[in-house]
């Protein structure tokens, strides 16, 4: 591997680690209380936020949107601490134009809490509270206001998602492992095919084995980092999710490849059987990782009705870190595989000299 490529690999990984850890999360709402209110009441909404600086951000604007064009604006806002606000609303006694169904059959985000200020930018929380349409005339003054689109600030930040919180950064350390694994195993299977076509020429068996070793190593890192991530977002290390199960099966199939290789004494026989097995292993890898998980419901993003590359899961700031991380780890994996291959090639050469 070219030394400049190695330099670029290290640079890309260093960049993805630094940017992945240093770019802050955008402000997000952790919790609101109360979660239900009757119409015709004054609402005192206690709000806890993450990563906010409300004390230095005046004025904060807040509103509860009932449908795309109507909103209830906060009558007053009290800043209690940098991360705590009390938003005061007057819920009118009349029937509210709350939109509960969306045209495309998706879950309605309304009532949608929206906040904006110069310091923290735009923050929102869907289905913020349950408004019971019960008539009482405590609050006559309605605080309806027209919906002027809030400007989002151009601050560089990763999106705040509930439950995920800071672990959204794991995207740069967990997902590139699978991308790198996929490419390394693909290179491995190419070498296996080349070996079967012309067994005498080149060092294809050794190359196939080395690339598979590093590929499986990345797969193991991917599955264990995924388990740690799952523990703190899905609730347990292993929730027998389709994606977890199928990737574990895929890795076991590849582990059998190494067992098979080590069980032959004769080099030619070993290379031939291993190459054929490698092709079958790769052929099962594709449906296991990319077809079956997509056919059933899964907790993992990208599965079932769960898009992996949706706007929020991977916004533009995240892409700027994610793609360099993918390229960097692929190159790093390639480098690792070439070193393993060269050591093995020396060993084979030595053994050939001895005989």
């Amino acid at each position, binding site marked *: 591997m070219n030394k400049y490529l190695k330099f670029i690999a290290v640079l890309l990984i260093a960049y993805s*680690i630094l940017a992945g*850890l240093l770019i802050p*999360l955008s402000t997000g709402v952790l919790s609101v209380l109360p979660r239900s209110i009757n119409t015709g009441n004054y609402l005192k909404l206690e709000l806890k936020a*993450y*990563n906010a600086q409300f004390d230095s951000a005046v004025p904060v604007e807040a509103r509860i949107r009932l449908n795309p064009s109507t909103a209830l604006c906060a009558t007053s806002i009290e800043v209690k601490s940098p991360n705590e606000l009390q938003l005061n609303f007057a819920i009118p006694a009349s029937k509210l134009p709350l939109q509960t169904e969306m045209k495309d059959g998706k879950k309605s985000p309304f009532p949608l809490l929206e906040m904006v200020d110069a310091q923290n930018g735009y923050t929102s929380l869907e289905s913020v509270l349950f408004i019971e349409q019960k008539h009482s005339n405590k609050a006559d003054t309605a605080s309806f206001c027209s919906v002027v689109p809030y400007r989002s600030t151009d601050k560089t930040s990763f999106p705040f998602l509930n439950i*995920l*919180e*800071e*672990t959204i*950064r*794991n995207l740069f*350390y*967990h997902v590139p*492992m699978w991308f790198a694994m996929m490419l390394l195993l693909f290179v491995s299977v190419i070498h296996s095919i080349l070996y079967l076509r012309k067994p005498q020429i080149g060092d294809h068996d050794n190359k196939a084995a080395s690339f598979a070793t*590093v590929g499986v*190593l990345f797969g*193991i*890192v991917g599955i*264990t*980092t995924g388990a*740690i*991530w799952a*523990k*703190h977002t899905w*609730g347990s290390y292993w929730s027998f999710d389709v994606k977890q199960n199928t990737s574990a099966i895929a890795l076991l199939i590849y582990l059998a490849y190494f067992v098979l290789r080590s069980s032959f004494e004769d080099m030619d026989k070993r290379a031939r059987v291993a190459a054929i097995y490698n092709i079958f292993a790769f052929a099962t890898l594709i449906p296991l990782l990319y077809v079956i998980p997509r056919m059933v419901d899964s907790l993992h993003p990208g599965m079932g009705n769960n898009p992996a590359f949706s706007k929020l899961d991977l916004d533009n700031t995240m892409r700027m870190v994610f793609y360099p991380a993918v390229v960097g780890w692929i190159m790093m994996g390639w480098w*690792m595989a070439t*070193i*393993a291959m060269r*050591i*093995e090639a*020396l*060993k084979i050469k*030595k053994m050939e000299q001895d005989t």
Partner: protein
Amino acid sequence: MKNRIYTSLFLLLPFAAFAQESQSNDYFGNIGKIYVVAAVMLLLFGTMIAFMIYLERKLDRLEELMNDD
């Protein structure tokens, strides 16, 4: 000081940390779950180091073979 030792111990042993009992007691849930990211990165680099050790042992054996002659 004692707290600091415990903190570093937990960073070294992500799997040995307390189970998630409640939101406030959960060490890994603190500060927006940033320690989950720390554990993931530690595991990633731990594996890379383990691979380097594996390669070095392979080289050691090869060197022994060469030196036998």
